């Protein structure tokens, strides 16, 4: 995910949309529940706009003033690759930490 300082929010947004299409407020609430991170409206829409430009999310027909967004196939692929990378880094870090604990 080549999104500079929006990479963090972008991962959270894509992970949320992986569970189904959502509008801005529902997305914020969902991210809060699964990640414990509170995304501010400005940050959320800056990241969402970039994801839309890159074809990773897609706007749907508006529901009143709200507009839901859904993950595109390219978005699913980008998220999967990014999360596998993160998992690899996490497992190396955890393994080294436990080796360190074991050796005292």
């Amino acid at each position, binding site marked *: 995910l080549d999104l500079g300082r929006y990479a963090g929010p972008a991962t959270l947004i894509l992970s949320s949309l992986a569970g189904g299409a959502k509008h*801005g407020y529902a997305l914020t609430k969902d991210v809060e529940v699964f990640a414990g991170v509170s995304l501010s409206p400005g940050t959320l829409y800056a990241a969402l706009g970039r994801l839309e430009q890159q074809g990773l999310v897609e706007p749907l027909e*508006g529901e009143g003033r709200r*507009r839901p967004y859904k993950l595109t196939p390219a978005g699913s692929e980008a998220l999967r690759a990014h999360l596998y990378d993160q998992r690899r880094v996490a497992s190396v870090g955890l393994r080294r930490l436990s080796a360190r604990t074991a050796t005292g």
Partner: protein
Amino acid sequence: MTRRERRIGRLLRWYPRSWRERYGEEFAALLDETIEDGRGGLGMSLDVAREGVVARRDALDRRALMLACWTLCWIPLFPQGIVALILLVERAKPHSWFVALYLPAPLSWLLAAAMTSLGLGLLTAAAHTLRQARADAQHPLNGHVGP
């Protein structure tokens, strides 16, 4: 208009018009719900202001690029490009304006041709930027224009 609506209107003004036309309505809905939720404090305003300024900078960059290409393309294209080529064909005497005419034969042709290409390239870039800006403004899911 309620106090909250006025506040949302003020927050939206941080963003450039093109952004507001595309995202304004849905973003206003999100701000409304965030304030309703009791999270519309100073932190939210600062975040909106910061991202609005970033969006303005992005929009300005594109407009500045288009203006620069549009303004500059005529110089290489006509006086240093096409007109210089015509003068080379006509075997006219060197003239202060036409850089290519000061050079010996193969180089003068090359420079005039390169200048013409540069002018055409800048003109194409200006047209492309303008087309992209128009396409963004006429997004099918944009505001009142239904799909």
